[in-house]
């Protein structure tokens, strides 16, 4: 399965749902990271190119049906003398809480885990569920780190999946902030007078992928299709037709470590960490993920999910008739609320299924999209990684 590296040449603009028109003072704000649907849209566009290099509108149904993607994940690119290398990054897992310490280059990391409700405590439970609380094992006095790394280096992330260790770490070893906001002011220019038009002033906020010390960040997306008429190179992506460089690499998405499989099989429990935002028909709670896969149906014990992200977009294929009876294409897409990337679901697996079945169950989920509907899975929403969990609720200690 090919993996494509998408390296923005200019700041990338991936807008939120706010309308952006030719009105004075209008601003196009970029999201802090592209949604999978944007990148998959780019992939499908490449897949639908004709021999003339133009998108073939007759291909819309085919590419929507046949082209799916996993990602995007953030990667860092390092060119050495022979070839380009890349190192993977993952969105910060929500079950890692970073606290400030005196040394600003370091942070103390604590793990949020499913906990037993303290004796005599009551609280407003999630309606219709018996989901466990998720908290810290013990009270802490430190302040939260104001700006923790939004993306973790894959080594740190993989260690967190396998053996989440609490304690102090160097922030640089944990991860980085990711793409940064870059703001530009634009004016409309009168070509005759070479002066600006009155009122035609607008601002765009894009994502800068080239960071300090020439750090090169890019997006990686795995797709199950090859492009008949596109071998790579510069092409526009996102708002304002900003340019990105596409290039195909042989490296696949990271594989599931053997030790991790072993531990999940032993414990009959695991964490599912979302690497891209997930769409679930019930909102924060997954459904498809809990259905039997390889004959194994997991049970949701606890869900560590922040406030929803909202995705909409523009449907180029939607047809509508205007008030004047004219036929036009394009309409806003309905919004979907998403569980943010980094969300963690704590699952228990049946005790009575055999090792082989659990092994296959892991294969069904590791680096696969676990959203509830086919379209969202095909677009890349809900890319999952698995991590260890004891399966037991831990006591909450308050000193």
């Amino acid at each position: 399965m090919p993996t494509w590296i998408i390296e923005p040449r200019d700041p990338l603009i991936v807008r939120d749902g706010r309308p952006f028109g030719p009105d004075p003072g209008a601003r196009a704000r970029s999201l802090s990271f592209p949604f999978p649907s944007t990148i998959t849209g780019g992939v499908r566009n490449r897949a639908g190119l004709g021999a003339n290099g133009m998108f073939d509108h007759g291909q819309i149904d085919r590419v929507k049906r046949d082209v799916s993607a996993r990602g995007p994940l953030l990667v860092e690119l390092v060119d050495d003398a022979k070839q380009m290398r890349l190192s993977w990054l993952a969105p910060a897992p929500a079950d890692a809480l970073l606290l400030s310490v005196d040394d600003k280059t370091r942070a103390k990391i604590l793990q949020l885990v499913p906990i037993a409700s303290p004796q005599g405590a009551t609280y407003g439970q999630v309606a219709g569920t018996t989901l466990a609380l998720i908290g810290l094992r013990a009270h802490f006095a430190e302040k939260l780190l104001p700006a923790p790394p939004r993306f973790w280096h894959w080594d740190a992330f993989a260690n967190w999946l396998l053996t989440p260790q609490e304690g102090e770490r160097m922030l640089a070893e944990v991860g980085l902030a990711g793409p940064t906001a870059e703001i530009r002011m634009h004016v409309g220019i009168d070509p005759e007078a070479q002066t600006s038009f009155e009122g035609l002033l607008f601002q765009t906020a894009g994502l800068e992928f080239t960071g300090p010390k020439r750090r090169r960040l890019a997006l990686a997306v795995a797709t199950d299709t090859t492009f008949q008429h596109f071998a790579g190179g510069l092409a526009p992506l996102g708002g304002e037709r900003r340019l990105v460089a596409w290039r195909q690499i042989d490296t696949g998405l990271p594989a599931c470590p053997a030790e991790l499989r072993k531990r999940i099989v032993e414990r009959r429990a695991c964490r599912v960490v979302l690497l891209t935002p997930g769409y679930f028909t019930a909102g924060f709670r997954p459904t498809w993920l809990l259905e039997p896969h390889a004959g194994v149906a997991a049970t949701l014990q606890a869900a560590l999910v922040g406030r929803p992200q909202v995705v909409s977009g523009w449907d180029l294929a939607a047809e509508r008739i205007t008030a004047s009876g004219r036929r036009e294409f394009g309409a806003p897409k309905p919004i979907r609320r998403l569980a943010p990337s980094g969300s963690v679901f704590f699952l228990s697996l049946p005790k009575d299924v055999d090792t082989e079945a659990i092994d296959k169950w892991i294969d069904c989920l590791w680096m696969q999209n676990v959203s509830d509907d086919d379209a969202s899975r095909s677009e890349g929403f809900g890319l999952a990684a698995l991590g260890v969990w004891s399966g037991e609720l831990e006591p909450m200690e308050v000193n």
Partner: protein
Amino acid sequence: MAESLFLVTIGPVQEFIVAARRTRDLWFGSWLLSELSREASQAITAADAGARLIFPAPETITNQSPELANVANKILAAVNIDPQLLGQQVEAAVRAHLAQLMVDAFDKGRIDWSDNAAGRVVAEQQVAELLEIYWAGVPLPPGQYAYARRQIEAVIAARKSTRDFGAAQWAAAVPKSSIDGQRDSVIPESRYPSRNDPERSLRIDKLYQQYRAGPAERLSGVDLLKRHGQPRGQPFFPSTADIAARPLLRRLASQPGAKHAWDDYIRELERIGADLRDEVVQRSHPVIERYDGGLLFESRLGELFDDAPRQRQAAQALAAFLRAVDSPAPQPYYAILQADGDRMGATLDAQVAQADHELLSERLSTFAAQALQIVSGHDGALVYAGGDDVLALLPLDTALDCARKLHAAFAEAVNPTGKQAFVDRDRRSPTLSAGIAICHQIEPLNDALRLARDAEHKAKDVDGKDALAIVLSKRSGADVLVVDKWGQLDERLAEYTACHLADELPDGAAFQLRDLAQRLAVGSDAARIAALGSAAQAEAIRILGRKQRQRGTEKIKDPQRDGLVKRLEPSIASIRGAADELIVARLLAEATRLAAGKE
């Protein structure tokens, strides 16, 4: 029933408040959260007559005006009934109150839903799912208050780990809210005029009259609630333009002949066809009476007319008015102040007894009441003052002094002289750190609020805190940030402002110093940049010494620039810092000068 500690939180807070394009959105959002928290507090005491409110203090709920947003979104009480039952009752009461406020906004205002029933249904759904209410209860054995409080904080934090949102049932293929992009617009697209619509002006006017929406604004049900909500007391909340115009308004108030000139100006605007019905606000000024200060800005006049010729005529009328009152155009900048107590959590943690926590709440309540007086006394508008948080809009000439007074009032309110002192375990008293964003009046409000919050964070980054940060965001060039401890930065700014007012620091000095620092800091060779520090210092002193005051007729005398010169260290960063502070002070001085009529 044994005593329990009960905690309820109501959100969302930050995202909800910042989602604002107009000051009404901001103010009503703050008021709404405060009102719902007030309702939660009252629901607790209504359900359990023996309940003791710990935070906020009972007098916050009972004594202060309900039109003031002063109840924090976190309510803590000691109760004698089953917390499970109480939690359900409180949640039901808060949701019912929101539903009533929504009905008031949607049915008693101007919105005509008669041919938009579907929009009304969606708007109701959006408002109904707005709130995030979390509550918890834990046993409160005698003498175990501190333990119980830590326990309940841990339980509520653990519950908040799961944000249980549902799918958006109303989602449709329609444009989304211009304010937050999170919800569908409930205004039918057919209400919006096209670019070439011959009745464009009429339709724009109708859109505003009916929905209070601009021609490019799409609004959700939650947005409409903010625009049309009907708070108790119907207080007036000024626009950003009105706040920016206040230095000039204060000057006009005592200026003979200004009223006559203003009447001429209004007559001329009406003669050329301006509809000024929506430019009227609920306050009275001796000269401009009930008109919004935005009429003093040419950029705002554009909103009154669709066509360029009339916009030009209006601009000429404004220029004639300013000539008649012998005033320059008002500065288009205003300040947003956001302040928050330092070490409050640690101070609360250090209180072992419930009675101590109650006393601290009472003192914070006193501070909130004082904050209203202080902000009003500085011609500002208080958005919110509850607990240790303050959010206010201020004119430039009073912003610094207002922040200083708030800082002093907080210290005195929390630890009044001669009374029980509240400190954390390291014996440190809480202090108030503040961020001030100075923004253009047409800057989108949510961006300005974000700047104010960032400034507050910068103040909070200062070691030991007790700090002030000011960010100046001009429409040209990069933002200017100055930050330091209270007693340092505010003193220097006051001193530099006084120097500017006395014409002892000519305009160019600040920019020459900044230019010097920028030119010398080029490159990445840290050793070379450090080595240039002494030269930069000498050059800066030469620039300050060379500059002349009194419009270029007299050299600056040494004693008057000594304070500034002495602070210049042999480093480029020091010179850059001084330049930035002078740039901020210059703007404050211009506003002060305008208000005093001495420009």
